[in-house]
């Protein structure tokens, strides 16, 4: 594996771990949002179990997008981004390292927490594996597609709101397929088609997003 890729991945990972609020905040947000639903809608198990896939997924999507604003901002503000651009390495590869670090510190903890959230919302046991699978396929898409928005808005003041506006429409398909898939399994059906489509979206995002992010960063910095 490329040395600069690993160096950047390590640096970003280390920085997020040091700045605890950066990785704990989205998780805290996720837990709070999910736990508010039973309080607001009443603890009826049937209703909760029906809305569980949607609630977990919407909370995961919001938590992920919430943390995206930091993705390139500190690098932009302290001049690190310029240094990354001047290196001999392809900027897309470096962006991919940053996106991977973001997913490891945001997406992965969300996946790890999801079974607990599903228990809270009384999701049928048989749908747990599908929920986790949908998050494994979907959270990288949130990071990858969200990264494009983060790269485009990095130079703007108050870019966070614009970022959300930019990326939500692109993330809607993920939300729809994921919640449809989990609900299908909870209702005793298969979710192969939905997960297949999510996989396709992931591949597309993985192939295109690093290039789009790199191009957007070049625009933002000039």
């Amino acid at each position, binding site marked *: 594996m490329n040395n*600069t890729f690993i*160096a*950047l991945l*390590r640096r970003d990972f280390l920085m997020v771990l040091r700045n605890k609020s950066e990785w704990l905040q989205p998780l805290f947000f996720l837990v709070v949002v999910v736990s508010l639903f039973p309080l607001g809608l009443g603890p009826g198990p049937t209703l909760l179990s029906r809305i569980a896939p949607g609630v977990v997924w919407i909370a995961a999507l919001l938590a992920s997008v919430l943390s995206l604003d930091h993705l390139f901002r500190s690098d932009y503000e302290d*001049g690190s981004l*310029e*240094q990354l651009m001047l*290196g*001999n390495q392809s900027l897309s590869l470096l962006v991919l390292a940053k996106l991977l670090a973001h997913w490891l510190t945001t997406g992965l903890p969300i996946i790890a927490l999801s079974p607990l959230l599903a228990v809270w919302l009384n999701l049928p046991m048989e749908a747990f594996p599908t929920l986790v699978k949908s998050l494994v396929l979907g959270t990288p898409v949130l990071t990858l597609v969200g990264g494009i928005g983060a790269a485009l808005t990095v130079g703007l003041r108050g870019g966070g709101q614009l970022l959300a506006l930019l990326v939500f429409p692109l993330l809607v398909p993920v939300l729809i397929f994921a919640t449809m898939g989990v609900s299908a399994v909870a209702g005793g059906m298969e979710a192969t088609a939905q997960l297949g489509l999510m996989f396709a979206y992931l591949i597309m995002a993985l192939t295109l997003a690093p290039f789009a992010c790199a191009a957007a960063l070049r625009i933002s*910095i000039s």
Partner: protein
Amino acid sequence: MVTGANGCGKTTLIRIIAGLLDASSGALHLPETAIAYVGHYLGLKDTMTVRENLQFYARFTSGGRDRDIDADLERMQIRAHADQPARSLSAGQRKRCALARLLFQPDALWLLDEPYANLDAEGLSLVDGLLREHQQQGGMAVVVSHNRMVPDDLETKTLRVEAWSDVL
């Protein structure tokens, strides 16, 4: 050496040379070397220590992988602060830390935007020493400075930017 009044476009010029900005007209011919750039924003991570910051750039630049970071810190006279987070350093110490990156790239074209700013007398002579060594090794540097010139013993060409129109 590029000099000129505040706001005349020195930084714009050096950023165009670095490839961070597109020139609206004209052509840029650069030697086929890597570029080392120290600008106004130093590229240091506040939460990381001085040593970690430099280790990252050492891994990041191909020339710096096997470097003895402590020796480089010693040379820049910030060895004593090696394990402090970068945010606890003074502006001059941060500058020294950023300038230490140049040691990883002796073969590169150095682009230095106000390298003398914030430095004390020792720091100033450190920069002079780096430039002298770089030139002796056949290297080239573009130094932007509005108040201090590079030492006389260096072979220097000076561009005085009078107004934006000189750059544009």
